[in-house]
């Protein structure tokens, strides 16, 4: 039990080896093994999460081993409410993605092996407690994705893959610089462990070092911000996302939108807020504006897209804006909303990409002007599509509403930080009002899309198109049930990141 998280993280690698041993022509077996192992992995996660300690809000399942003593690098893994939440999202999205991978035929074995490696990388990011280890897993998750997009993607897959890789690499390099700066200036003989963060904040804030006359905390903020903003993505760094999401095969789009963007948010919370909370607080208005730009720019771009998948990609950018607004507002409610938005958008975006993928597999077209009238031949898919679109708009009673409501309510009330300047309350109130209006744009383009894809006169060319099969229906229903369930009873999830949120508020000096 001591190394349970190590086993948990590296279980997919083990399964990858197992898959490697299966002869490649046994395609059904490969699919089954991959699916069963991810389901088993999910159940294992449920067991891990369902400890009473999660309510106490401590780190649990912690394991720590010395690794590189001279730099105080340790191999430490642990789980807290936030990472548990992220892991749960990962497992659900991953099981759906693996389930949707049954149509992959080209080099199927390699595909599932890479998926397993990706899973290890993602869990590693969420469960590592040491900064260095975090970085290694962060990069590890990048390599399989390059291949997954590049080999199994659409027409322009090579371009999309290399663009994704280079963009993320830029982020990684900044993360690396930040990491080395922290390691180098660290005066404490303590590992850079998430559990030690308050102590590290103290010395970072008190440090007199400056680089190009910019104080160390600000430099660190920039390094971390750029690193994670590319992944989220935040406005000027977002251009990789439409390409990658559109070109990736359906299951990978689901993973990209469902999990990979959240890795960026997780990094912002864990590392950026973790190391330099005060700087983040001081630039909160700027962050808020960036979030608003994301929201509005993403929404308008989505509105003008001609391609269904691209539209969803831009709507992802738009929805991630809520996460940023929630983070920037720094009130208990908005932070909670931000974390919830990560989960809800993960589920909803995965479902939307699934639907888009299913449409493409049957009609070989994602051009919105081309589609239309699918409701006649695909009633099941249409129902699911309608549901996903309403969830995405934020219909009350669905999960999207909960998170967006929390973010908006939180930012409207504003933070009561001692650092807040006069007028900042109005700033956040006006900002959240603008964000609220943006919801309307979201409703407009989403409903319009719904109309253009599914409704309208039944067209002759889709007469022979088949409805979604049971597998797709099952995955859609599970996602839909989760979206409804957490839309009605969000409290289960709401209390999970509670400790982390209180900690963040404590760090920035707001207190509980």
């Amino acid at each position, binding site marked *: 039990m001591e190394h349970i998280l190590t086993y948990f993280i590296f279980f997919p690698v083990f399964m990858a080896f197992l898959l490697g041993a299966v002869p490649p022509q046994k395609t059904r077996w490969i699919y089954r093994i991959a699916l069963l192992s991810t389901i088993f992995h999910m159940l294992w996660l449920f067991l891990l999460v369902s400890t009473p300690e999660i309510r106490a809000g401590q780190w649990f399942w912690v394991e720590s081993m010395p690794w590189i003593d001279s730099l105080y690098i340790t191999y430490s893994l642990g789980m807290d409410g936030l990472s548990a939440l992220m892991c749960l999202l990962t497992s659900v999205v991953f099981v759906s993605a693996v389930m949707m991978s049954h149509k992959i035929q080209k080099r199927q074995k390699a595909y599932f092996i890479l998926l397993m490696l990706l899973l290890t990388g993602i869990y590693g990011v969420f469960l590592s407690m040491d900064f260095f280890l975090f970085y290694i897993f962060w990069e590890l998750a990048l390599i399989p994705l390059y291949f997954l997009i590049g080999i199994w993607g659409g027409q322009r897959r090579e371009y999309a893959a290399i663009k994704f890789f280079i963009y993320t690499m*830029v982020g990684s390099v*900044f993360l690396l610089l930040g990491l080395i700066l922290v390691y180098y200036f660290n005066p404490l003989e303590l590992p850079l462990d998430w559990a030690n963060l308050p102590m590290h904040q103290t010395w970072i804030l008190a440090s007199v070092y400056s680089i190009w006359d910019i104080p160390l905390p600000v430099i660190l903020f920039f390094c971390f911000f750029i690193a994670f903003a590319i992944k989220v993505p935040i406005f000027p760094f977002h251009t990789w996302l439409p390409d990658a999401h559109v070109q990736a095969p359906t299951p990978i789009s689901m993973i990209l939108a469902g999990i990979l963007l959240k890795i960026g948010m997780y990094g912002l919370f864990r590392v950026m807020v973790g190391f330099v909370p005060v700087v983040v607080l001081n630039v909160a208005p700027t962050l808020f504006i960036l979030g608003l730009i994301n929201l509005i720019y993403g929404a308008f771009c989505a509105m003008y897209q001609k391609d269904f998948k691209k539209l969803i990609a831009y709507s992802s950018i738009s929805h991630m804006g809520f996460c940023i607004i929630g983070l920037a507002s720094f009130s208990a409610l908005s932070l909670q909303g931000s974390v919830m938005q990560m989960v809800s958008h993960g589920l909803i975006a995965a479902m939307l990409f699934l639907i888009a993928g299913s449409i493409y597999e049957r009609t070989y077209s994602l051009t919105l002007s081309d589609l239309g009238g699918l409701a006649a031949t695909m009633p099941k898919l249409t129902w699911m599509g309608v549901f996903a679109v309403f969830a995405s708009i934020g219909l009350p009673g669905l999960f999207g509403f909960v998170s967006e409501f929390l973010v908006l309510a939180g930012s409207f009330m504003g933070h009561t930080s001692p650092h807040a300047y006069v007028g900042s309350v109005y700033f956040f109130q006006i900002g959240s009002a603008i964000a609220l209006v943006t919801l309307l744009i979201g409703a407009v383009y989403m409903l319009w899309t719904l109309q253009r894809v599914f409704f309208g006169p039944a067209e002759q060319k889709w007469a022979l198109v088949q409805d979604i099969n049971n597998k797709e229906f099952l995955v859609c229903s599970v996602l839909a049930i989760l979206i409804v369930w957490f839309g009605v009873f969000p409290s289960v999830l709401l209390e999970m990141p509670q400790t982390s949120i209180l900690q963040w508020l404590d760090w920035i000096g707001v207190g509980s």
Partner: protein
Amino acid sequence: MMDQIHVGNIASFAFFVPELILLAGSILLLILSLTKIQSRRWAIAIVLFIFSTAFFASLFSLDRSTTEIRLFSNLLSLDPFSDFARIFFLFSSLLTTFFFYQSKTFSSTKKFFETTAFLSILTVGLICMVSSVDFLMTFLSMEMVSILSYLLVASRPKDAFSSEAGLKYILFGAVATGIMLFGLSLLFGMAGSSHFTDVASFLAGELGAYQIMALFFCMICLLVGFGFKMTIFPTQMWVPDVYQGAPTSVTAFLSVSSKAGGFLVFLRFLLFCMHEVGNQALMFFEQVRLHEILVFFGLISMLIGNVSALRQRNMKRLMAYSSIAHAGFMLLGVSCFTQDGFESVLLYLTLYLFMNFGAFYIIHLRTIDTGNDHMDSFRGYGNQNIWMSISMAIFLLSLIGLPPFSGFIAKFYIFKGLIAQEYYTAALLGAVNTVIAVYYYMKIIKWMFLKDGNDPEYPRYSKVSRMFVIFLLIPTVVLGLYWVPLLRWIQISINFVYL
């Protein structure tokens, strides 16, 4: 301070065993090349025997790390640093002999014996070059290395590329040597001696403004000579043509050993000065602005290497440019002038040895498969031989500097050294260069995995080739996860300067 022992000329031979083995071996090999031995198995067995005996002999001398032994009337110094160099070069040559064995160019036993004889003398030259503490000795052994390198590069006389490469190498080499010799004679004229001790104490003394100017010029001249071996800007021009024209095995050797030779001999000079006169040496280097020059040259080398590599389609040419970029990176480590910085260079060199040899070896295998060294030869390699292409991908990812592979650790320590010296701009530009490099390394990976191959043949490699790749792959992966023992050894080999 370490104990210093001066050993007489005859007694010195007792400490010179690995080199003697190699020299005797080279004579043996030259004689063998005249005989009619046709069995390649015997040939490789004899060669491996000679090189591995020398290698193990060098390992045995490791235990006297508290003394510094001066051999041959104070010409060579045996200290932890030269131990490091010795083991590094012998190991690299050991790998190279195997590489030669597989090379088509050296497929006749006669040619193989001749070439390995050159290689063993070259290795002695490299070791002497780095252990030398007298500029005369440094220069002589550098020439020994250079001339034999020219021979190795031009070892395919019927191939136009190879001859052209040889000629270019000689011309550039001659110019670099001339410039360096000019600088050395200036230094000799001022210091009155060519021994490092005298030079160091001269540098530490009171220097007039004109002397500083002359010394600045000397340093530039020296840097031209050493930089020619290091393949850094402004003496990097020969690299692409020579690397492309030479047989792949020779290219691999040049890109690892010859480059390491340049770096280590330069480090030897810097370390020796610090060892002898301590901080005064640092003050001198600051006076002649060596830091700035090195940072500048390093950054330009990186930029030239990476940007030129972007559009290369020939694998060897691409790797040549990439090796210029890596040299620039290492030079940034040298420019720190701290213990951490120097350590990071040695670490980089060691890790670079494995990954670069690995990448070149697979390029070599692929050249044999397809008959050309164009990037096109890697098209669809992932479909044909998945393990070899995964290994190649790992070597390339390691060259990019992605964790968990060892190239990341190399870069990590260089960055750490730069940040410790507050060279933030250099660190930032280095980081930018890392991103540029991603493009061309990933391009090879793209050709291997993302493009479908058009030739159906399925290359199978001998067990020995596969073992060799695994042998290089293991350190590339393992040292990326746990590098402490290697780092400790490197620290020991530099520490004595700072004691």
